[in-house]
């Protein structure tokens, strides 16, 4: 008579075999399989993982910690990318306010001083680079075993694209060729992430990750971000 395999015995323990009755019958008549099964049974019965107690009030504690992190999702609200672009637009407007203020028409407000304008832009671009870096890092560091949902990262990438465009144009107009060039590459990468399907097979995901890594964009962001931060600090220490 053919003996039962270790795998069959394990699945018999979990009652996930098609022919449970057949296995039971075999065990009743086969000493060696019965001994092997007892061993597996006693091993698996020892495998416990006691969990610390959480009382009835636990759900409420979780909720109170979670609540401040939840934003109301208004279905009628403007998409987040519009808000991100608007914010970036304000920063850019502040940057150019000092350059193109129409002084002849009205004497009123004082133009924003050059270091202040530059500081505003550098802080905003620095934050933008960090946010972009986080999205790309999360993608690059994921190791999915099966299908992966990147809709959240895509949403964030979409938000960043609109802002990125404004910062890139501003940097180009301000003669910041290096910054504009990295922002241009970043924009291409963000668009690529945003335009993929939300659900990727592990193969498609791996391909996306390889493309992001091959572009070396994370390294470039890191370099340019640290330069931006340094300049920002220098301006701050001078003022």
């Amino acid at each position, binding site marked *: 008579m053919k003996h039962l395999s270790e795998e069959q015995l394990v699945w018999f323990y979990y009652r996930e075999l098609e022919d449970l009755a057949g296995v039971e019958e075999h065990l009743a008549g086969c000493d060696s399989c019965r001994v092997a099964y007892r061993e*597996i049974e006693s091993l698996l019965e020892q495998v416990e*993982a006691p969990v610390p*107690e959480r009382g009835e009030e636990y759900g409420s504690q*979780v909720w109170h910690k*979670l609540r401040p*992190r*939840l934003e*109301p999702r208004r279905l009628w609200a403007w998409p987040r990318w519009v808000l991100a672009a608007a914010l970036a637009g304000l920063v850019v407007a502040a940057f150019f306010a000092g350059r193109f203020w129409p002084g002849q028409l009205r004497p009123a407000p004082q133009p924003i001083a050059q270091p202040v304008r530059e500081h505003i832009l550098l802080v905003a671009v620095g934050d933008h680079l960090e946010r972009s870096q986080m999205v790309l890092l999360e993608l690059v560091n994921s190791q999915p*075993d099966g299908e992966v949902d990147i809709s959240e990262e895509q949403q964030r990438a979409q938000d960043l694209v609109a802002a990125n465009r404004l910062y890139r144009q501003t940097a180009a107009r301000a003669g910041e060729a290096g910054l504009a060039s990295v922002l241009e590459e970043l924009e291409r990468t963000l668009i690529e992430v945003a335009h993929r399907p939300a659900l990727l097979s592990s193969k498609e995901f791996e391909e996306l990750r390889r493309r992001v890594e091959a572009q070396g964009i994370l390294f470039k962001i890191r370099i340019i971000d640290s330069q931006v931060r340094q300049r920002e600090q220098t301006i701050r220490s001078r003022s």
Partner: protein
Amino acid sequence: MEQSEAAAIEQARAGDPEAFRVLVEQHSRTVFRLAYRMTANEQDAEDTVQETFLRAYRQIRQFDARSKFSTWICRIAVNCSLDLLRARQRRRESEDPIIPDSAAGDQPSPERLAFSRQVQRKVTAALAELSPAERAAFVLRHFEGVSVGEIAGVLGHSNGATRHSVFRAVQKLRRALEPLR
């Protein structure tokens, strides 16, 4: 699905964060238990609970109302735990496996207790050595009593691959506990 849960899901899908409270209060303990078994660390489990509900809130419009919310939230919890385990695996090499505090209640004889603690330590160490996919499959099958078919759905694997993960986990546990037998 209970009426209150169905209504809460509907309102949360419409963008009301307060409606989400019912779901959090109802499923927090289950999510914590699963997260703790996956991560073997209380703080990591707490972080996973928060991350799970945050992701669920952001993705609730993708929830198919015909499915069970408990299955959906457990799937998110497993994925959050897997992310954490993978991140931990990347930075872990030099660290010892985390041994959780014993949460056992009964106090048998000192010898039995010592033996049981020894087994527990071995089991914990062996569980920590499993790959994230093996650990997830084993925890769901062994501790949570989830069927192979459902686990395969949660992990996005085939039934065959899931069975293989569980079986490999059992083999590794057998090898780890062999010296105590």
